[in-house]
């Protein structure tokens, strides 16, 4: 599905160059559930942003469904992003001024999906996530777990091929976190490709593959020995 070759990312502050990612090579196939782990500042978020086409590498190649993303201009990148990728954030990043319903609807608006179809899609998702009763509430009126549910709902409403999640449970209680992870597992079973960043060993167990980042290098890349659940 996607492959990156010799990806580099650095920041220049004055005379200083800070390397964030160095010589990253990675291939992800459809249907994988990849977990990225590593200490704070090791470049996990940066890698995820590059994969999600929100950020660009300073060097290296990025092929997405065999398309050379690194050669695309911003407009084409954001088109690809819009149609194939869903993003879940640690801080949820819901729009405070919009209701639950409107938050979930937003990506569909940007894809130009017709009103009737939108309604049906949102109704489906609300139903699936048990949030029908909450659809008219504002984010501030929800608990963290519920907000992240909305975040996930919003990420998958457009049926993306790839779901990226940057510490999706980082701000949640363990029980709320479990709900989200169960949801990911289920999406995975349904065939969605997922790449998540987490600090939590238990969450990593949901994935099929574990990548360890350290100081911008991939230290380890291996399959996950599934716990017996």
């Amino acid at each position, binding site marked *: 599905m996607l492959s990156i070759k010799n990806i580099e990312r650095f920041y220049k502050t004055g005379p200083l160059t800070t390397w964030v990612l160095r010589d990253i090579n990675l291939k992800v196939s459809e249907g994988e559930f990849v977990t990225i782990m590593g200490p704070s500042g090791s470049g996990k978020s940066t890698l995820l942003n590059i994969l999600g086409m929100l*950020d660009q590498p300073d060097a290296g190649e990025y092929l997405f469904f065999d398309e050379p993303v690194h050669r695309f201009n911003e407009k084409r990148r954001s088109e690809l992003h819009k149609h194939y990728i869903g993003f879940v954030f640690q801080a949820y990043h819901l729009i405070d001024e919009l209701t639950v319903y409107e938050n979930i609807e937003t990506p569909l608006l940007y894809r130009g999906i017709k009103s009737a179809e939108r309604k049906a899609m949102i109704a489906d998702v609300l139903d699936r996530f048990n949030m029908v009763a909450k659809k008219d509430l504002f984010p501030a009126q929800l608990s963290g777990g519920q907000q992240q549910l909305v975040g996930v709902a919003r990420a998958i409403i457009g049926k993306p091929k790839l779901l990226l999640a940057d510490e999706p449970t980082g701000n949640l209680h363990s029980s709320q976190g479990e709900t989200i992870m169960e949801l990911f597992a289920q999406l995975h079973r349904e065939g969605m490709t997922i790449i998540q960043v987490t600090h939590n060993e238990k969450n990593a167990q949901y994935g099929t593959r574990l990548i360890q980042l350290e100081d911008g290098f991939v230290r380890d890349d291996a399959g996950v020995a599934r716990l017996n659940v």
Partner: protein
Amino acid sequence: MQFKFILRSMARNKVYAGINILGLGLGIAAVLLIFQVVRYELGYNKNFSRYDRIVRVVTQSQSSEGESWNPCVPIPAMFAIPDAVPELTQVARMREFWPSISVPGAEDGTPPKKFLRKDPSVAFFTEPSFFEIFDLEWLAGDPKTALRDEGSVVIIRSEAERFFGSWQAAMNETLVLDNVARVTVRGVVEDLPPDCDLPINMLASWPTYIAQQALYYYDDNWGSCNSSNQVFGLLADASQLGAAERSLAKVGEKQYAENSSTGKADKTHRLQPMSDLHFSDKLNNSAFRTITKGRLKVLSFIALLILGMACFNFINLSTAMASQRAKEIGVRKTLGVGRGQLLRQFLGETAVVSVLSVALGVAVARLCLPLLKHISDVPVEAPFLSLPQTWAFLVFVTIAVTLLAGFYPAVVLAGFEPAGALKNSVGAVRGGHRAWVRQSLVVLQFSIAIAFIVGTIITLSQLHFIRTKDLGFDQNLIYTFYYNNDSLSVAKLNTLKNRLLQAPEVEAVSYNTDPPSSGNSWMSNFAFPSNAEDADFALQIKYADTDYPKTFGLRMAAGKWYDPSDTMKQAVVNEAFLRKMGVEKPEDAIGEDLKLGGRAGIIITGVVQDFHAFSVHQPIAPLMISTQRDYYYNAAVKVNPGDMAAAARAIESAFDEVYPEQVFEGHWYDETIARFYEDENRFANACKGFGVLAIFIACIGLFGLSSHAAARRAKEIGIRKVLGAGTAGITALLARDFIKLVLVAFVLAAPAGWYFMNRWLQDFAYRIDIQWWVFVVAGAVALVGATLVVALQTVRAALADPVESLRSE
């Protein structure tokens, strides 16, 4: 301590502090400039210490056309007033005149020195009681005797210096007025200040007036009321105005009734207090400039609007940023600070901003002081910052701005509930509950700005209309000048005309009383035809020679111009005359006769097409043009296109050759006409200036608000971009809220602008129709301004890297 915090907070929010200080500073500058205008105008004539008790006797006339006012007093009435009105402790007869002045040459053949009249200046024939009413500062001479004898004058210091080098040298020296009257300087007084409606340069004794009867139209007749013949008086007490008017009403009662066609007195004398002299819209003064209190109120109102707009910016930005301060307030409250203390803190912050703004405002106002001449008469040299009133006003403005701008935000901020404030949830839902106040203020700002633009466009269109309107005569390439019409000079008029026509530049020369359009008017009662009853309105008269139509390009509707004559035998009338008299075909009037005053049998030889004899404020009135050579004092020279400066020089040298002793002062006629509309020009300039300022203040406010909105919504913008929003979509999202406000402002301002400008246009008898595109343009200007300003902020926000704004610490 406090102060340090305030400065630190301003440094942190440089852009917002800058917007506040810039907006308020400019607003205050405008207010200061208007204050200077209003203060200057209200200070008029206060140089006279008896200001409160001085009155002018004026004449109120009734006719079928309505009432009219004139500062004239017939000479016999002047003599009746002192006895008839005991409430006046002093009465001074006065006669305005504008003499050319020269210092005669000596026996040894040194040529006379001629002096151009300085504008504005006026001379009066008057009597010693003048000095009991108006206190002047005497440098030399005795107020009791200086104006006692024939041939005595008192001049002001600067004229004395101009004529004789120094005022000390002027005493007992000789001057020649209008080439005829030799007078002796018997006193020198200090110059009058510029804010005085008696811009006197010379006072001559009353006996001199009587001695020069012919030259100065001395007419000792109850029927003659010349606006230059005036009476000023002094009340024993200002409260006796009513009593004095009642006594005055008896003056001339009998004579005016005898002279009137109805048998009832059509005139009464009234008193105009000195305090009204500068502000009357009915009566002119010797400075030929008045300004109504209404106009001053409009100016003050504009100042208030501009200052209000600047304060709105402050209110909007501080309340918009309130959420940022919510946390600080919450912490302070949990530490036990009282509401009152918080209020004081926030007002203190505003006071610092006010003081800085006032400082900026003073600096800008000083820089802009020379611009005042485009909207007012205030001379650049008029004292401004040296006046204690100005400083008192500045203190007042500082306090007013602090309260106006600071009070509401302070109440909002101090009113935060600590719990809510700490959770930072202020305004989290749907943009905040105070948003409507901000939105209303923005709407108000843009309404004001749009109204100003509408005003500017309409005044400029009307001015353009006036400038390009066919006035019915030519105003271009005509050079005019006055000459003395004493019999010696009149005898040489033909020589001058021939001499002028020899110049290759000159096409035609006409002698007359007035050009077709002038501020002057000669009116007379008349009958048409001669044997009919006098008409119940007065006829306007111009006297001119037979070259008049050629010189000014007048067009005939029927018949021909009258034949050459030195006295009044034939005449032409205008179309308005025929309409008013019910003559349908112009040809029918030819050969008819009319009676002017007591003079019957004036034959109408032609009908001239209507032309504007006054400014376009007034409808075209019935008019007659006839001959009367002794009355002419104005010459008009039509030149051919080409080097106009050379033409002017040729005319002047011809004049100097024929009249070496006379002072020459020529004017291009189109410039004279342009001066009729000085007031409108000023109004247009004021609209323009304040319109630009209003738009600017509204736009920088919008700049602050939109930049704040973009900052506040940075996270939302990031999310939306991640969800697939494009730059255009985000810009539109952010801009929409503000553009909506401008549209609402437009809807409010357009009818208001229409209403006020329509009223303004009513003052013109000839005016433009207000076109719909005026509003489109005004709306578009506001919209484009607002969009540019908002787009600047929102495009930047839309282009921002979403990863940046979404990075969670």
